[in-house]
């Protein structure tokens, strides 16, 4: 039988919170696969983090989803935890809704809503199998306070994250009998490339470190998933 290490997949795993999550879970002894668009960055992060499985793919692109899912399942031999972390800000710099290009909004929806939906759906067989085998599996969707609060300028991002939040709740209702738990986690304002894109003049020192957010998220997953970390 397989070694009972937690198998974790993280999207958007080459920078910001995603990279911090890769490091955090590797440090806790998990088997980790991460997904990102840029082949060079994926290679570099994989080289710098022995044991991490790097997968090149774009979660916002429909045709990439099944190849990504197959690599996650193949490389980890199944899946216990999926973290949908990859996000798109929408217009950058931020724009009022009236000034938001439809294409920017669509990209935010593709990355923040449809991507996590498609990837979760493709991985559901693996997640439910893990839940039947070990009693628990989990999908974590990274959210934002912009999903709950109406911040001017954050329309595309906020609305897409709100949709992701609602999707999370419905998934959770539907998959509870199969033992897959879905949760939204708002990591707070972090010192990440995305935050710099959204609020270029913010003071990084006043922001949360992504490593701290990664630790909190890993703690929350660990508490739910049992002692396999």
């Amino acid at each position: 039988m397989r070694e009972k290490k937690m198998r974790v997949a993280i999207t958007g795993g080459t920078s910001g919170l995603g990279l911090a999550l890769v490091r955090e879970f590797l440090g806790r002894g998990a088997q980790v696969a991460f997904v990102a668009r840029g082949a060079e960055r994926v290679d570099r992060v994989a080289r710098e983090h022995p044991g991490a499985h790097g997968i090149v793919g774009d979660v916002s692109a429909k045709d990439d989803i099944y190849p990504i899912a197959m690599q996650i399942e193949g490389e980890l031999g199944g899946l216990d935890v999926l973290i949908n972390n990859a996000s798109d800000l929408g217009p950058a710099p931020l724009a009022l809704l009236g000034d938001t290009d439809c294409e920017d909004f669509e990209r935010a929806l593709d990355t923040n809503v449809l991507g996590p939906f498609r990837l979760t759906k493709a991985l559901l067989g693996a997640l439910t199998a893990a839940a039947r085998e070990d009693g628990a599996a989990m999908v974590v969707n990274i959210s934002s306070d912009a999903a709950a609060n109406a911040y001017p300028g954050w329309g595309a991002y906020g609305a897409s994250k709100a949709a992701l939040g609602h999707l999370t709740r419905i998934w959770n209702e539907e998959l509870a009998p199969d033992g897959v738990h879905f949760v939204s986690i708002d990591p707070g304002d972090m010192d990440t490339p995305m935050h710099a894109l959204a609020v270029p003049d913010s003071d990084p020192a006043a922001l949360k470190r992504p490593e701290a957010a990664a630790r909190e998220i890993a703690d929350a997953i660990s508490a739910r998933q049992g002692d396999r970390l």
Partner: protein
Amino acid sequence: MMAAAEPRQRPPDAKLMVIDERGSITHVRRASLDACLRAGDVVVANDALALPASLRGVHTRTGCLIEVRLAGRRSLDEVHDFTAVVFGAGDFHARTEDRPAPPWLSPGDRLTLGPLSATIARLLTHPRLVDLHLDGPADAIWAGLARHGRPIQYAYVPVTLELWDAWSPVAGRPVAFEAPSAGFALDWHMVERIRSRGAAFATVTHTAGISSTGDVDLDRMLPFDEPYRISEATAAAVESARARGNRVIAIGTTVVRALEHAAIQDGHVHAGDGLATQRIGPGSRLRVVDAILTGVHEAGTSHYELLRAFADAGTLVRAERELEDMGYRTHEFGDSVLIEKRQAAYEPGPTSTTQYWTDCRAKPIRIKPTPTTPIVFAGT
């Protein structure tokens, strides 16, 4: 019979023939499959995903175009070494029977398969059958398979299959070479309904092999040895159903092969990894599985042989005639058959023609009198 030519896993008009333990035949909509279940049953599916196991490429020494179909592996965790069937130029649009042979293959020959490269490790007992070693790190092999591989497919489906066409919703581990397609009958709503009937749902992981090579001698060797894994939860669910006197219902021939193999030693299904090597046929005694949901298989295939462990030859001949008469579609996107294991005490005879309707009361689409048939097996 007619092949299902459209790659649609759950067409709304999918049919289900039910052959009960006395050999009586009824027809229902496959969407009402759950009505065939009883509280306490355990339904076991295969959660293996079909790898994109068809790889186009070039035989380096000769420059000839080839297609490699990965067809077997020694363990679930194997990434580099496969048994493979090699075809010459062309693709699935030609019937496998009509495919040209590959160039003369020798051990050590190199193959370029898109982004992947491979070496022929050894020739096996047939000119098309080889042991193949895929080069490079495991992650690069997964990436190469994901980007370059296609699901194995046959000429009766004219459109090119995508990865998702070969993945049943409940499948989760890319270790099979063809889809365990009996599972196409399941979606998440069906899993929900299975539970609402008071039945349990469980899975095994079995590396379903290729179903046909187009070569009579090679096909005779099928199925190859197939690794499988049974979790403790599944072994416990199966054993507790058996202890209660409830039924074990296998979704597909691969599940039968895995569960029966796992019980070979002492009649009990044990959790763990195994290599299913046995052939199941008319002489086999089924110790674990009480019923099988499977596709519509034609006489002479190894899948059909396995069904002969469930039903006597006369019943299968009658069934085949009804499948034909009622326009059932064959192959992986086709209709389905649910066969209960015949009762030990049951003797084929006049009672086999009685419409005996116990479980599946949901919407029979047509029930017609079953004619008395001579006990002749079509394939012999």
